[in-house]
């Protein structure tokens, strides 16, 4: 469970890990009921209507300049860019 929390980028306390483990086991048991189905020759469904690979022309349809509005949502901005703490050099 601790490994899953790390993959999900969540910091969980021991109490949370314990509690979630029990609850997730119960849901996975529910998921186990799917074993009753033979799916060997059944394709998976991704889009219920069967749409695949929708393309559009590579043209600009909206030239509103929302750069300032979009940047305004950022927690830390510098020179028109999103700023983060150091990304290299230290492992998590």
């Amino acid at each position, binding site marked *: *469970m601790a490994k*899953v*929390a790390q*993959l*999900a*980028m*969540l*910091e*969980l306390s021991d109490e*949370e890990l314990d509690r*979630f483990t029990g*609850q*997730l086991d*119960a*849901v*996975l048991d*529910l*998921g*186990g*009921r*799917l*074993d*009753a*189905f033979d*799916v060997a020759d*059944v*394709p*998976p*469904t*991704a*889009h*219920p*209507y069967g*749409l695949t690979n*929708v393309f*559009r022309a590579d043209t600009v349809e909206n030239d509103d300049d*929302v750069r300032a*509005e*979009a940047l*305004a*949502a*950022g*927690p*830390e901005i510098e020179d028109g860019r*999103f700023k*983060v*703490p*150091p*990304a290299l*050099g*230290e*492992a*998590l």
Partner: protein
Amino acid sequence: MSAESGHVVADGQATDVSVADVASAVRNGDRSASSIVEDHLSRIGELDDEIHAFTTVVADRAREAATVIDQKIESGEDPGPLAGVPVALKDNMCTRGVTTTCSSKMLEQWIPPYDATVVERLSAAGAIVVGKTNLDEFAMGSSTENSAFGPTRNPHDTDRVPGGSSGGSAAAVAAGFAPLSFGSDTGGSIRQPASLCGVVGMKPTYGRVSRYGLVAFASSLDQIGPFTRSVADAALAFDVIAGHDPRDATSIATAYEPVGPHLTDGVEGLRVGVISELCRQDLEGFEPAVVERTSRAAEALADAGAKVDEVSIPSVIAGLSAYYMIAPAEASSNLARYDGVRYGLRQPGQNTASMMAASRTAGFGDEVKRRIMLGTYALSAGYYDAFYGKAQRVRTIMIQEFEQVYQRFDVLLTPTSPCEAFRFGAKADPLTMYYNDVCTIPSNLTGQPAISVPYGTGAEGLPVGVQVLAPMLGESDLFRAAAVLERSLEGSVS
């Protein structure tokens, strides 16, 4: 309202008005949009402290928009089919310049730089947004108890939940805060709260309504739809928002046929199947009175000329198992974007990775974390085929079973929710809460449309809804049956 009554429904109040009547009164010049909006703002101001349907009320913007409509009327311009209709939007639909919180600390301050397509279409039709409504955080839940800003109360009994996740939108319509609201439905999040709050709630065919600007939860399941106090109003609203949108790559391009003209078609000869697996009284959490209401609805349709029969769809119960693999898996992927970099909450960290983990940990509530954990596990190396892959294949089996059944039937009937509105805290165990969705989940997995229609009350005197299901793009039959059910209750003892 009086504190002891705990009952705040629209019946007989100044704001107990239909979408159709408001629009026609405004269009004819009998009422000004401004006066309609004032009525609703004043009811919200009086009563929403008690109900907490809204996360944000945009009174000033609503007044400005109403003035624009009134000016259009004065100058002879067409103000649109929903002229002056107050509308409430679930707070996971992007509204330019107005916070879109998803009822999460993560997005508490987030102001989108664009409007969702649904918001654009409603505004173009003359509707007036009065506020954003409360939800279970990121639409994950069936009671609105998972909102980071506190729960919404059921207008029929304020000691009880309104359902969820679109609980605020359902409560807003039931309480008379707006005649029209919108929610999103991933596993029943429109239909279940509609049932618990005694209003109409509809989930369109997957791909029928654009999701551009809807904050994503589970992308292969999410769909936007309306809440109203009547079937005709739901049809009117659906006709405004439905249709292809090139900005949503999952949007269906097939030409849209309005459902409005079919409302009075009746059900003579319509083949109605009652799904036997979902109408049994021995299923976990099913209240006998709720199943009884579904039987009455089947009788009413038969009385109106429909051919009603029982039908078995064996895979339908497994829907719950498939859903709780698929939805958390897609959620864990969709919610990876909340990392404290471009928007949302940021907590300090020594490096980027620790900043991201700290931000996510502080920004998400318990249920969201639980589902992200589950989804991350279900998608992780070595487990993908056993969980997500398998669930997507069972989904195909379910679709095939429904398609076969729809060769013999035009629409299907089930309860919407297995129970009436429950008390706060009554379903604290996550799995008990998940069982609530057993009747609504199949339509999300198959992508097919469904509607919940209020059909009297249950053993505790609270609203009970029945659900009509139809095949892909079968909305006109859905509305035909729903309209007949609604009429069958008029004048009868519910």
